[in-house]
């Protein structure tokens, strides 16, 4: 079962290691982890996606809550959450595939953000499934290099992780 967990942490030295170390120690696998400063620079927000049974998920949430620098942990439920991921993907710029690359980018509402005689860099944003689908389309054409940010997610509506 795939789960998305949002973690509100103090923006301090070593916090990422603490969180990542906890997953390692307890034998849980992280699918993706995205972290960045919040509107209050004292805090960062992590979005962690993972796979595992419900009991394992409950345990990891409880363990996260024990970390001193972790201020809030919330399981983001399916359907009640908006998720986005950013992909940057570099393909060879060849006459025979150029049109196909541009058409696919268009369909996936991507953007070509770098264009040279040898290569193109494409930016695609969307839900993780869409990102994966775009990668699958590009695979036969030949991916030179790619980078994904991992999922960033927020609850729908006025629900927030940390009340002000």
């Amino acid at each position, binding site marked *: 079962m795939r789960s998305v967990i949002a973690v509100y942490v103090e923006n301090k030295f070593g916090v990422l290691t603490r969180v990542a170390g906890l997953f390692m120690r307890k034998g849980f696998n992280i699918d993706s982890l995205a972290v960045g400063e919040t509107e209050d620079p004292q805090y960062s927000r992590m979005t962690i996606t993972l796979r595992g049974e419900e009991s394992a998920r409950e345990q990891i949430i*409880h363990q996260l809550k024990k970390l001193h620098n972790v201020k809030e942990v919330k399981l983001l439920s399916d359907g009640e959450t908006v998720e986005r991921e950013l992909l940057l993907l570099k393909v060879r710029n060849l006459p025979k595939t150029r049109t196909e690359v541009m058409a696919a980018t268009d369909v996936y509402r991507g953007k070509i953000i770098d264009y040279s005689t040898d290569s193109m860099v494409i930016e695609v944003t969307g839900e993780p499934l869409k990102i994966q689908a775009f990668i699958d389309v590009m695979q036969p054409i030949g991916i030179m290099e790619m980078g994904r940010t991992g999922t960033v997610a927020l609850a729908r509506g006025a629900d927030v992780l940390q009340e002000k």
Partner: protein
Amino acid sequence: MRKKNPQWTGAQIVVQTLIEQGVTDVFGYPGGTVLDLYDELYLHRDKLRHILTAHEQGAAHAADGYARATGKVGVVIATSGPGATNLVTGIATAMIDSVPMVALTGNVATSQIGRDSFQEINIYGITMPITKHNYFVTDVHELADTIREAFQIAKSGRPGPVLIDIPKDVQLAKCAFTPQGVVAPQPQKEVSQTEIDRAAALIQKAERPYIYVGGGAAACGLTEEILAFAERIDACIGCTLMGLSAVPHHCPRFLGMQGMHGRYASTMANRRADLVLGLGVRFSDRATGNTATYAPEATIIQLDADLSEINKNVPVALGLVGDLVENFKRIAAACAPAAHPDWMDEIAALRETERKLTQAAQTVCDLSPQRLMDVINDEKTDDTLIVTDVGQHQMWAAQCIDLEKARRFISSGGLGTMGYGMGAAIGAQIGDGSRAVLITGDGSFGMNLNELTTAVTYQIPLVIVLFNNGALGMVRQLQELYYGRRYAETELARKTDFVKLAQAFGAKGERAATLEAFRAAFHAAMRHRGPTLIEVPIEKEEPVLPMLPPDGADGDIITTKEAFQ
């Protein structure tokens, strides 16, 4: 210091904050990056007593033993590099047994960090998984509050060790300092009355209630309340190794330690129960055996300070997280008296079986472990601190030593740290003041016997009873059962003369070859001012019984020596 707003060095702030937090004793070992701190300790030696051990590991175990015996936060200091890494086993031991401790380490100056400088080690990274929290302080302005926060974290909720790494330049840097009061533990969340009532309702429905007492209950002094409650709902009481001193052993409802080498009656009663009320327990594999077959008919209620312990090892019907004393008292108040005569008959039958099995399994020799423990029971008082190392002797002590008061049984439970005992006994004795008896084996004692020097220097009233079976008995026992008696590296053909060894350190050394000789030697040692070591030769073949094999179910309990023959 004539200025209006005097400036204090980091080292001064550390010492002042320790004093402010009520610390009176620290254990440690000096070195290059804590020179400034030790200079301050020297200047304040009238307020803060420093105990120098032979090795930093001993100092860490001493701070741990000090905390277990007193309930106060134990403090240990070490220098950077090897000084800091030598603390690691001690910190990990305290972590898994939830012992409040603050470890202070020096480090090279911040300008030297990351350059593989002499005695530089990233102890912050190393201890991250084995501390409740840890700090690397880079700004002297944050130092005092960091230490205060460390004390608060160490003693709040489920206690644990906290490490603070302080680079040398931060110890030298200056800033203002204002003393504050002792930090209070953070209050815990209150449990709703609905949940309390639910727990009470489940208890009232039960016909075979079993109160399962762990280290959490022992640490918060739940004793009288447990006895009164057991009486009221007509329940029996069992415990984990960590919970051993929570309940006075004379209590007729107390069945002793359960689990792998627990007492037969408590292990069986736990598995037969239809209600298990866990008080500060974590359902460790050593206490439960195979969790899939554990207490199959029981509704389990778990009271703990740590949310992550609920449903971690065993799924429970109800988990109440928060202040253990508070929650237990509220549940007790919500329960009406009950009587379970059938259950009590069953318990009596289990006790009778246990008595027969124990009698049959006892070695009919002069120096059987059980007889030796009986002598210790005869000679000790209710205040005597019983400290153990790890191995067979530890389990015999857990099974046989009679305890009447809390914090009188000090043993490495979760980590099973051989070599824990010497340091822990010294620390416990210094903290509590009562005489300490260290029950140890030739294997464990061999690991940290260097601390004899500390016991002699500080004239610690300590009796070391060394069960010498010339083997690493606990591991040997497993090889006997499961490895075709191939005793790989567990038979010790060592020529150590423990009597001379003790004497060389300046302690009294005795060897007792008969039970009467042991009684006489132990009697004298209990009146001796300093440390005495009494070596007792015991049978190498003596197994610890009963034995619930790792991952075993109740039908698998080994109760006779025939399994070994």
